[in-house]
């Protein structure tokens, strides 16, 4: 149980006790019974879990928005210009975007498959927000500690190409269809090296939960040292999985007019753009957890702050690659995924197995 959960359970008990006391004060029989029911364990559990989820989601989304801010400002400096300047240092740009996007008209293309059109984007957004729940920020600040959290995260992440394909097809637009197919091919190709790197980490640590992996790294060594090839492969595959430059042909402007999400216009599109960055944030978070020691670090700042700082630094490298490289063609991306990254990931797995068998770790 995380500290967050314990604190919030105490808070919920106090709150529900207050509500029950208020209902008692009215001296009506059925209201007092209702107040008593409110204080039973299942209700307290339910309300506190709900509060934990809401608070965690809001916190994670705020930090996710910080990633968008970081990208815009840092990309600006790479290009010798200032980034956004809306609000204090540009922090309020995301809120302005959000407000504007809410006020827009909702347009559905005429001959599109209306149900799938709405469901596809909903599935994409839902899979991104579900992932926030899987990734803890530290020992004490998480929603739930699943034993197979890493696998669960990648599994939910892999739902993305499915919804991209459906969204691209259901828009009744041949360019979104092509964009969706290209995106699905690219994401499937780049997931295999990702998974193999995770397997190599699991071989060494023997544990697929985040807490286990980070604890192992705290005791032994940050996994980027023995598994450097794996870290590099994971890094390149992560850039490709979040469809950033140099792998962003599925949403290239001159080619495909924004790719699979061309026909989505309002809140759906706003949240889709945000969730593209959230997916990049989650992959950076995975990289930090698996290779950079997660929240391990000296005690002078909070563990959550260590985790976030490392993730921001990894994302800086994502942005640096974006500023420096050019977009490569789809067949070159697929060739990279299948013919270059996959052998590297296998080599990395062999190194991990050799290290484990030799008893080094």
């Amino acid at each position: 149980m995380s500290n967050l959960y314990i604190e919030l359970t105490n808070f919920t008990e106090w709150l529900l006790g207050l509500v029950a006391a208020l209902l008692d004060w009215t001296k009506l029989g059925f209201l007092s019974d209702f107040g008593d029911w409110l204080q039973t364990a299942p209700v307290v559990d339910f309300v506190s879990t709900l509060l934990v989820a809401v608070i965690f989601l809001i916190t994670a989304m705020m930090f996710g928005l910080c990633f968008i801010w970081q990208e815009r400002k840092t990309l600006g400096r790479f290009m010798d210009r200032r980034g956004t300047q809306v609000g204090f240092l540009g922090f309020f740009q995301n809120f302005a975007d959000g407000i504007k996007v809410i006020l827009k008209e909702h347009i559905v293309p005429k001959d599109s498959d209306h149900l799938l059109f709405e469901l596809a984007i909903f599935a994409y957004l839902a899979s991104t927000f579900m992932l926030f729940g899987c990734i803890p920020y530290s020992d004490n600040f998480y929603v739930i500690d699943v034993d197979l959290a890493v696998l669960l995260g990648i599994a939910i992440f892999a739902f993305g190409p499915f919804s991209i394909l459906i969204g691209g097809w259901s828009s009744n637009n041949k360019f979104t269809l092509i964009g969706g197919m290209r995106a699905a091919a690219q994401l499937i190709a780049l997931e295999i090296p990702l998974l193999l790197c995770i397997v190599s980490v699991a071989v060494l640590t023997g544990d697929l939960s985040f807490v286990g992996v980070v604890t192992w790294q705290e005791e032994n060594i940050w996994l980027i040292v023995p598994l450097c090839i794996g870290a590099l492969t994971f890094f390149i595959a992560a850039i490709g999985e979040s469809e950033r430059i140099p792998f962003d042909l599925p949403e290239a402007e001159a080619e495909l007019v924004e790719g699979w999400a061309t026909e989505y216009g309002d809140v759906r599109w706003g949240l889709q753009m945000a969730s593209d960055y959230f997916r990049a944030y989650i992959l950076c978070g995975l990289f930090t957890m698996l290779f950079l020691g997660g929240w391990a670090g000296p005690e002078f700042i909070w563990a959550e702050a260590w985790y976030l700082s490392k993730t921001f630094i990894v994302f800086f490298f994502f942005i640096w690659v974006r500023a420096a490289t050019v977009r490569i063609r789809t067949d070159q991306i697929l060739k990279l995924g299948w013919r270059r990254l996959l052998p590297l990931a296998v080599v990395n797995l062999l190194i991990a197995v050799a290290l484990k068998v030799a008893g080094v770790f």
Partner: protein
Amino acid sequence: MDIDLSFNAMTMTAKQFGEMTKTLVRETMVATGGKKVIDKITAPIWSWGQRNSVYPLHFGIACCALEMAAAGGPRYDVERLGIVFRSSPRQSDVLLLNGWISAKIRPSLKALYEQMPSPKWVVAMGECTISGGPWYDAYNVIQGADTFIPVDVYVPGCPSRPEAMIQAFNMLNKKLTAENRGSFLDD
């Protein structure tokens, strides 16, 4: 109040029920003065959001498009004002017209304008979009964009300087702030 209260619940479809509820809510809010209060509170927020995040459509027709691109460059960075060029009309607010509009591209531009979700605006950049410019006697050039779509701001110049384009977006911000007063519940 202007509501027809003689409905028959059994013969209404879901859509009619939705319409009736919307009308009821709107009329109640107007009558009790609640709409005014909410307008006063939300109009500044809506305006702030809309003017700090204007997304023009990246549709360059001719020479003024290069000035639009220069405005997005490092020297006159427009991203610091919240302006991000989007390629899809569904995702943009402003149709930024630059370059002469030939009769061949006029139907495409009209289609692009209609594909943009409201609220939307049009900025006519450069002499050719204001009035046909140097091609005032050409058979194939439309003499001004406002002959087929409503234009909100005109930017003279041949080509308009990037600073003039930024001034146009400032004027557009003033216009949309004024348009937003009294806009709650207007859909």
